């Protein structure tokens, strides 16, 4: 399982532990590349924690994470992240264009300014999401759907092979959602791998061809047709009292609490 360059993401015994409710426990799975992956599960299941652990935003307690067989630090330039819209302060004094251009900052490295080619790419990305006429608008003046499309444009600019998106369709109207899904599908056709934390079970089968179903621990992964079954859904969304208890006890014992 280690170092397999054809799997986009390979996770081994990942455990993530905060003081908040979300805990991830002993997760192990592998996702082949080129898939449109939905990460689903009930609230507090750890879906956002999974993304954060995978992207080096939080320290896992244990376990390994590999992208195309390599650790995050070596391949960070091939990974794009679209965070939750609420994680950002939309009063910040930048324009839509500035925001999209930030997608290039990682690739540019320190001490380098964005070049003409980067700016042109930003303009193209804005066109692709239908926002080029709003390029110089302050981000505080944009609607939810427009903000989400900006995030997508920024991700496009990162020119990555793997995309991680955290609940991109919350508070977005149906038309924008369809538009975004269309864009993402285009990406997938180019061979990119997409991971999306998704909250709406109604659209799961429509969008994704691969699923990660979790609730603190992994319930199932695999092709949507195999995973999206009543039995497994019930298992995920039902109360897993024993797992929760065991996880809680384990956390207490390792931190010395009674």
């Amino acid at each position, binding site marked *: 399982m280690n170092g397999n360059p054809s799997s986009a993401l390979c996770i081994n015994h990942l455990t993530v532990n905060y*003081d908040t409710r979300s805990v991830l426990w002993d997760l192990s799975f592998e996702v082949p590349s080129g898939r449109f992956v939905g990460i689903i599960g009930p609230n507090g299941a750890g879906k956002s924690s999974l993304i*954060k652990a995978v*992207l*080096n*935003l939080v320290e896992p307690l244990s376990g390994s994470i590999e992208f195309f067989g390599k650790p995050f*630090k070596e391949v*960070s*330039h091939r*990974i*794009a*992240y679209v*965070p939750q819209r609420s*994680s*950002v*302060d939309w009063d*910040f*004094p*930048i*324009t839509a264009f*500035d*925001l999209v251009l*930030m*997608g290039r*900052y*990682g*690739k*540019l490295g*320190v*001490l380098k*300014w*964005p070049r003409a080619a980067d700016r042109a790419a930003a303009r193209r990305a804005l066109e692709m999401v239908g926002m080029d006429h709003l390029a110089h608008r*302050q981000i*505080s003046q944009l609607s939810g759907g427009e903000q989400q499309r900006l995030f997508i444009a*920024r991700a496009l600019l*990162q020119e990555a092979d793997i995309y*991680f998106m955290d609940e991109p369709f919350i508070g977005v109207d149906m038309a924008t959602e369809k538009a975004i899904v269309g864009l993402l599908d285009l990406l997938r056709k180019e061979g990119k791998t997409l991971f999306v934390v998704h909250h709406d079970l109604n659209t799961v089968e429509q969008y994704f061809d691969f699923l990660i179903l979790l609730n603190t621990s992994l319930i199932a992964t695999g092709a949507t047709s195999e995973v999206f079954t009543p039995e497994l859904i019930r298992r995920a969304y039902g109360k897993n009292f024993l797992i929760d208890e065991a996880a809680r006890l384990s956390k207490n014992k390792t931190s010395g609490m009674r």
Partner: protein
Amino acid sequence: MNPYTGTDFFSFFGVLFSRLFSWSSSIATDEIQLLVLIGVGLSSALIGTFLVLKQMTMLANSLSHTLLLGIVAAYLITGSGLVGSLGLTSLLIASLITALCTSLLTQFLTGSGKLQEDASIGIVFTTLFAIGVVLVTLFTRNAHIGTEMVMGNSDALHVDDIWLTYAVLLLNGALITLFFKEFKITAFDPGLARSSGISTNFFNYLLMILIALTAIVVFRAVGLVLVLAFFVGPPLIARELTHRLAPLLFISMGTAAVCALLSVALSRHVLTVYQAPFSTGAILVTLIGLFYFTLILIKRLYKRGLMKKSVSVTIPNN
């Protein structure tokens, strides 16, 4: 003889301009004050803009207290800096120790101590400041030093302080310019920054050290009272006037410089005309406050004026 003695507000500027163009050899106390205040104002406004955007202003408050212990520590190491002028090395040591102690202790309390964040910050800065006050009082054998530190003493400024101030300004300006896009992205979207391989930790620490550096210089010039006002006031004023980042930085720096200039002139004016010595630093804070509230008032009245105009347009004229 101080050429500014006996000048009122307007003649102050007169003397200032004439001395600017005549390049007289010795520098007056008022001018030292002026240069230092402008210098620290520019630095504070620059750093402060990012603090306001990152909603980290209370951290600046925290550091403005813990820096006292940093100064004491630097004094113990280098033997200088407690009274009289502060050398550049002492300054750097003090800032590093300040930033390090504050962040390490806070992290310790929230991490191992499992204490909530606001309480950790509060405990750390009040404790370190209390220790600092006690140590300084004992070292200097001066029971009133605590008060003096709060109010500051602009008249005790020295020519060396000018060099120090502008060295710090240069450092701030250089680092902010060099790392502009990194500061921008870590302020706006730290999640994206980290996942793009940019170390948010590094830039947060860097910012903290710059805050400590600037705060120490401000503190020594005008005391505790002004530090936070200088970090927060000008950016907030600028925020009312612009919605873009670069103008925001320049307007807040400009506002800080203008307020510094006006406050020194006012301080001299009030001393001359009313024989009333006031703390220049306090005048500065009050000026910043006045500017801010006047601006808000004007904006609101203007908005109401606009609304009245639009309402009267829609009412049909018979």
